[in-house]
């Protein structure tokens, strides 16, 4: 039973994470690449 609950929770978290990830990627500013992270620019905060 405990195993089943952990697995169901893992699946829900995984789906939630992916939905959030794609939402952020497509509709929010994102300037770094998943593979290499080269362009981590654009993240500077305006105020120090």
């Amino acid at each position, binding site marked *: 039973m405990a195993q*089943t609950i952990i697995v169901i929770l893992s699946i829900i978290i995984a789906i939630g994470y992916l939905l959030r990830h794609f939402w952020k*990627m497509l509709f929010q500013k994102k300037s770094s690449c998943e593979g290499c992270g080269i362009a981590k620019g654009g993240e500077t905060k305006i105020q120090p």
Partner: protein
Amino acid sequence: MKIALFGNPNTGKSSVFNLLTGLRQQVGNFAGSTVDKREGLLAIGKAKHSITDFPGAYSVYPRSKDEKIVYDLLTNKNQEIYPDAALFVVDAANLERNLLFFTQVYDLNIPLILVLNMWDLTAKRKIEIDIEKLQEAFPGVQIVTSNARLGFGKTRIIQAIQNINLEAQRSFFIKEYLIAEINDQEKQITETTLRYQKIKKLIFEVEKINETKTDVFSRKIDKIVVHPIWGYAIFIVVLLIIFQFIFSFASIPMELIDGIFTNFAAHTSQILPTGVFNNLICHGIIPGIGGVVVFIPQIALLFFFIAILEETGYLARVVFIMDRLMRPFGLNGKSVVPLMSSVACAIPAVMATRTISNWKERMITIFVAPFMSCSARIPVYTLLISLVIPKIYYFGFINLQGFVLFSLYSLGLVAVLLVSFIMKFIIRSEEKGFLLLELPSYKNPRWTNIGISIIEKIKLFIFDAGKVILAISIILWALASYGPGNSIEETLVKTKELKSFSDLNEVEKERELASVKLEASYIGRMGKFIEPVISPLGYDWKIGISLITSFAAREVFVGSLATIYAVQDDGATKTRLIDRLKRDRNSKGEKTYTIASGVSLMIFYVFAMQCMSTLAVVKRETNSWKWPLIQLLVMGIIAYLSAYLAFQLLH
């Protein structure tokens, strides 16, 4: 006080900005790191000054979108952000080129501080600058030296800001200088030419350059390295060597990592209590993550070689010779830098196209950049090459597998050239861009820098891409382990009743039943649904599912295959992915991975736009969904047709 930061590209403006404001803006050793303006605060005692870092420009007259930001500012004094004073950052070792824009800003009567940045380089290159004479030529301007990247010069710059004279009237070339209209190119050219003549005279008086041994050595090497014929031959040889090394040297650490993951899965399977959680960990997550992590040595090697080429100064020569190659195909000279950076990732490449002035030429570059093979394709290429290409050596040292990897990268470049050539006729453009490139002297690579950069990139690869792969592995495992209602059990019973397993041994029988079970699962049903579309390319439904999941990121393809095959191989945790793929057979009983299907799949990945992050960044850069959707469609059609052709010819 509002202080603007101006200067040519790649003079270290962002480093000066970071030095003064304490911010951590991205800096890079290439032109165009800053393509938008950024603001920060500098507090000196009670006084607070806002500092705005503007994109680099060669002149007040814009040639690109980012330079236009500077033009728009300087042509309208009524703007709120029009500066009270400016810090003009120049590369001290390239004073002549930098002074054109400086004198224009000077003539606009903006109170100025001239920052001679990268001052250490002048000594290294044996350049002597007479600061007093320079000061005489620009009365009212304070001149300070700095090396912002290493944190030197902050106090001098702050003192200069405190002592700045806001009232002084100045003129170097034209009194009451009026910037020519943006479309009046003739006036702009005349002004630039005459201004340069005056700058040359000044430089003759203030600067003395003693050529170093390194400069002489670099000039001699360049005679061959940028030669119209030998240059390309050397580049091809360099690439061939790199890909040979990637294939030969990475195999030992790869096998080690592979072994660690398979043993880890087997060990975990034994120590965890049996059940669904055990199954998820050992047949879903560990194989999914391990399938991709195993390719880290190859990606690290590719980054290592790119870093060496960049550090030594050879990459600048490659950009130079590629510019010559790409011009006849309608690519802007400025397209070369984004395209070269596409080898690591298409996203910074698409962003780097902001330096291209003409939007049509920029669109072509954005459109073709994803054809260049990025590092995320390496796991896919490597897995398929190891699977279907025999390990044969020609002349004792040319490994066929390494050669195929080289050919896939070359195919991407050919696609870039051909698609640009076609687009040249579809999108017509009168304006021509140019590439202004300074060839640095050859240098010994700084090994610490290379090491740090590789570790950083690998860390990002593991933790950024890893999270997506982990989530997809969990979902795939669930979809592959369960089916609608009791369909899996019912299918198993039916198969046992209808099929005779008399000619199979126990292991083969188990495998056959596992395969039937997988086909009855959710993922099997989804895969079977799309199979008719991909079967002409030689792919089965498992490849089809992995193709779809790899839209998230290309390397997810390998992780997905690893999870699907691990679920199918229920019970056998100690088998490597490559062995599972090698023995896999389709519904007709034929091997799934043959030369024909493998090559077809590799070609598909060369051309297909399998990257949601790139689509998102294209949407952001073009401000509409039109271009990314056209790109997705066109690249998809090219990929499908080429893969179809490859499979049918080789089958």
